[in-house]
């Protein structure tokens, strides 16, 4: 219960940070023209299934951009603001704090996702035709789980590599590509498909595509969902280890602030 309370407090703190910071919107803003162009390309062929998929997937780009960047910078920001030590002094695991921040960031991204959807809708003039709405709703839950785990992964990583500016410049669009937010990852070259399949979002988005196309049995979704959970567990395990490395460098060796 106390940890839940701490997580909510961390979410509130992150929410305030986003709303006070002037840069809060830039990552979402930049996503809008990009997805507008994606939508325009899709409109040229006019394939209803493709348009429907993109109407559902492109709004996730704006959430992804904000979540990865903002959550990715939380630990580095705390370190530079001298508050990370207090987080480690407290009994709340720092990963719980980060989870709260990730949830806040994803919630913050929802209105811009709606705005992005509106932009894509205006361009394509298409209502998404989803063959299996129930399957879609379930798959979106997996997408959110994937978003949270991916964004949390970058938080300790960014800190451990020195928290340099521009760290996410290529990571964010690469994540969009590998997550299947623009097209299902089976369209990618094989090398990239292999990379994409290590990420939970690629599996979760497979089921979104399946929901758009329709399926006679939900059993076809079980495999991708299982892989989504498996890769989420793997990614979360790596994230946990990275958090441990950060903690060790702060509490034991005490050298994290000396790059």
């Amino acid at each position, binding site marked *: 219960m106390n940890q839940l309370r701490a997580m909510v407090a961390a979410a509130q703190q992150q929410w305030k940070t986003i709303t006070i*910071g*002037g*840069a809060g*919107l*830039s*990552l979402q*803003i*930049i996503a*809008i*023209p*990009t997805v*507008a*162009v*994606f939508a*325009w*390309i*899709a409109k*040229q*062929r006019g*394939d209803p299934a*493709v348009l429907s998929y*993109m109407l559902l997937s492109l709004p996730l780009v704006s959430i992804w951009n904000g979540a990865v960047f903002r959550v990715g910078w939380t630990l580095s920001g705390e370190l530079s603001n001298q508050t990370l030590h207090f987080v480690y002094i407290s009994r709340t695991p720092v990963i719980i704090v980060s989870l709260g921040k990730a949830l806040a960031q994803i919630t913050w991204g929802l209105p811009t996702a709606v705005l992005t959807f509106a932009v894509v809708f205006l361009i394509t003039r298409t209502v998404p035709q989803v063959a299996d709405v129930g399957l879609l709703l379930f798959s979106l839950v997996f997408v959110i789980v994937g978003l949270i785990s991916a964004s949390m992964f970058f938080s300790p990583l960014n800190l451990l*590599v*020195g928290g*340099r*500016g*521009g*760290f996410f*410049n*290529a*990571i964010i*669009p*690469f994540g*969009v*590509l590998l997550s299947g937010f*623009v*097209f299902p990852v089976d*369209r*990618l*070259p094989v090398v*990239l498909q292999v990379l994409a399949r290590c990420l939970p979002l690629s599996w979760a988005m497979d089921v979104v595509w399946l929901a758009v196309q329709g399926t006679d049995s939900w059993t076809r979704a079980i495999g991708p969902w299982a892989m989504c959970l498996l890769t989420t567990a793997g990614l979360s395990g790596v994230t946990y280890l990275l958090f441990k490395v950060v903690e060790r460098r702060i509490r034991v060796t005490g050298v994290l602030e000396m790059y």
Partner: protein
Amino acid sequence: MYNFIIQSYANYKGLFGWLSWFSYLTTVFLRPVVMVITYGVLGRFAGSPEVVQRYAIGIAVYSMPVIVLPGLAQCYTYDRSGGTLAFFYATPVNRLVSYLSRPVFHYPNALFSFVATLFAAWATVGLNLVPVNWAGFVISTLVTAASVTALGQFLGTFAIVFRDWTNVQAVATGSLLVLTGVIIPITVFPTGIQAFARFLPMTNGLIAVQQTFAGNSLSDVTGYILWESLVALGYAVLGYAGFLLFERVAKRMGTLELEAF
């Protein structure tokens, strides 16, 4: 001249926040590759395969502002937030020399990014290099990069007085992506927007780049190159005027180390 080179180097080395090896290499070289793959595969998945080459050229040109605009904005922002701008304003140093020295090392980044994108496009989606008019292509590219850099200078000066440079950059790069013909031909827009787009960097340069890539002669695209050069000159002059104006604003409002707005 020596002073100019020193200023250029110091500005770049000290104020460009993406100069760590990881950030620089991934931003200049990897990100354009990702963009090419994204648009290339999307072109095949959702668009039509025959337009992929046009997209690739457009994205190669678009990769220029993606690196140059934030780079120059940082140059001005960090000058202010780092507290060095106040020292600069306190000296009688030539403002024009300082203004012109800031983009010197950012300009090549535009070209590196362009070449990396083009190479990635050639390797991944395939480009037909046989008909390319290389002289015209190179000149068009150099002029377009200069024009993009001039826009970076113009927008960068706003970072002196505005709270955050990222939102301005986000709007600018987004507008360039949509309105300059990178992917969406400007002919699909209403006449008024088309006319406005002619005054944006890249619009005319991109036409010249695409036409010379398709084999048109230099004389065919001279008009576009000249227009792009004029646009570049216009933004450079406006940027310098803004540089001088914002100095006065920052001094008058007592916000040399803070944002005025």
